């Protein structure tokens, strides 16, 4: 993304910290998010992604640090004002189960002060945007998981927010539903909406995010543009194989490697570099692929993202 260096960030966090009793969920993190970008927070469960996100819209009071959203402190007298400009998609759907799809949107629109003709137009255009028109009069119980998720996303858009925060928008969805949501999110960024999302899917982060932070145990380990981060820290290729398929002398080879459980990941810039390895069973199970954020996470933490 091209950005004039003078642009003010839409979110700025300095030393942002959150404790739950004695438990440190977010540990002095700094980041900036700029208008129009899709910003990702990648990390395993318990990394502090959700806690960070909830502080952005002042659901959760912060323990320490500074935070500005639209240049205002979200925790304070401007809290409601800040939220008027934010759409929130929480980790688990919290729709009004007794109401229909359309009624859910109408009720939520009420919180943003929409009424009359403006409300009706907004609801119709959002139903269309997420292809929920046919289900407009269905109750929530009649919806599939993917549809509920799509409804939760359009509900977040009801107030025409310029910032949308999504907590694991596609967790637990099938590939088709996931692609539908990715498409919608790309359309939003194309319209200039700023997106902040958390995920533990590296594919999602790599596909959608202009910039991201990798988080673990409340800290930011790395931040930057996904391709740059991979290029900077890792060779171009990864050979992935099971430990039991390797000949015993593999550790003596002059190759970088990481391992997790019984999987071994060798890292090199060229395919030929892997030729020094010898396999039992002809190495049928080995895979050679470009290095990814997943490998970077493994390198940084010694663990995999989606355990």
């Amino acid at each position: 993304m091209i950005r004039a260096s003078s642009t003010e960030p839409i979110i700025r966090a300095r030393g942002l910290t959150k404790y739950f009793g004695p438990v440190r969920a977010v540990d002095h993190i700094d980041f900036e998010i700029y208008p129009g970008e899709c910003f990702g927070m990648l990390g395993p469960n318990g990394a502090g992604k959700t806690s960070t996100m909830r502080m952005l819209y002042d659901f959760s009071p912060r323990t320490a640090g500074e935070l500005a959203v639209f240049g205002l402190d979200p925790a304070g007298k401007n809290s409601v004002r800040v939220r008027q400009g934010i759409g929130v998609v929480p980790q688990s759907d919290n729709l009004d189960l007794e109401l229909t799809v359309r009624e859910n949107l109408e009720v939520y629109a009420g919180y943003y002060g929409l009424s009359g003709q403006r409300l009706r137009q907004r609801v119709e255009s959002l139903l269309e945007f997420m292809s929920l028109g046919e289900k407009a009069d269905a109750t929530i119980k009649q919806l599939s998981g993917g549809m509920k998720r799509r409804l939760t996303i359009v509900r977040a858009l009801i107030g025409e927010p310029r910032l949308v925060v999504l907590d694991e928008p596609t967790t637990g969805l099938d590939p088709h539903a996931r692609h539908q949501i990715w498409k919608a999110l790309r359309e939003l960024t194309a319209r200039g909406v700023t997106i902040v999302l958390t995920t533990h899917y590296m594919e999602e982060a790599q596909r959608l995010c202009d910039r991201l932070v990798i988080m673990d145990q409340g800290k930011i380990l790395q931040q930057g543009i996904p391709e740059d981060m991979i290029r900077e820290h890792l060779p171009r290729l990864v050979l992935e194989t099971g430990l039991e398929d390797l000949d015993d002398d593999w550790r003596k080879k002059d190759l970088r490697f990481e391992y997790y459980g019984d999987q071994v990941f060798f890292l090199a810039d060229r395919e030929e570099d892997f030729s020094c390895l010898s396999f039992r069973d002809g190495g049928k199970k080995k895979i050679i692929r470009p290095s990814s954020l997943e490998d970077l996470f493994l390198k940084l933490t010694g663990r995999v993202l989606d355990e």
Partner: protein
Amino acid sequence: MSRDGLVLPEPQAWPMRIFAVWRRHQRVYFKFLVANVIPPFLEPLMLLLALGLGLAGYIGSIGGGTYTIFLAPGMIAISAMYSATYETTYGTFIRMEYEKIHDAILASPTSFLEMFMGEVIWVCCKCSIFSLGVLLVVASFGLIPSWWALLAVPTGFLCGMVFALMGLLVTSQVREINNFNFYMTGIITPMFFFSGVMFPLDSLPGFLKYACLCLPLTHVVELMRSFCAGILEVGLLWHLLVLMGYCAGLWPVVVTLLRRRIVV
């Protein structure tokens, strides 16, 4: 206007934000109007019918009228009490723990206090509706001699406020839905029996009578009974003050504890 040159949209005024929450509850409630209204509405009427038909003949007159006339205002009071109690215990708990409705509202431009007020005022309105409903039915049996009985509607509102705050206080502390049974059996049931609904408190021994005067429902019943009989006297202000005192005392405590429970 923030520094990046974007004009932040102005949220609607706070009374409208409270109203939006109120409207949410009202809408969900009216969606299943028949199932929501008929059973809790029939309960006090059945009680009235059973006691009125079964017992009244043995009792003769209480306070210058028949036993059934004595009972009727109490039925209005308990319908309001139960309505507020169920809504703010099981109802609020399900919204809070299972449906996460409060999380959804707090992600929108609504403050905690506005959300709280929207919910409490809705419960009060619901109690007013119930009071009016039971009043109309008992009046149709000719049990209500005075038009002043219409004051049962605002009295139901105030009763709703007291019991909504009490229910929410319990809900802010309860971690497991079955534990509401303790509140129902330990607080609400004694309230039902010892608030002068079924017999005049004067018939109790002195110390017990004074203990009953501490129960908020006692004061609701006294107000309802006076209004239904068309008696308006300065002494009623005392009951009004006790109920308002309950609200004023509970309000800040409940707001604090419930906020601590919902916002983490």
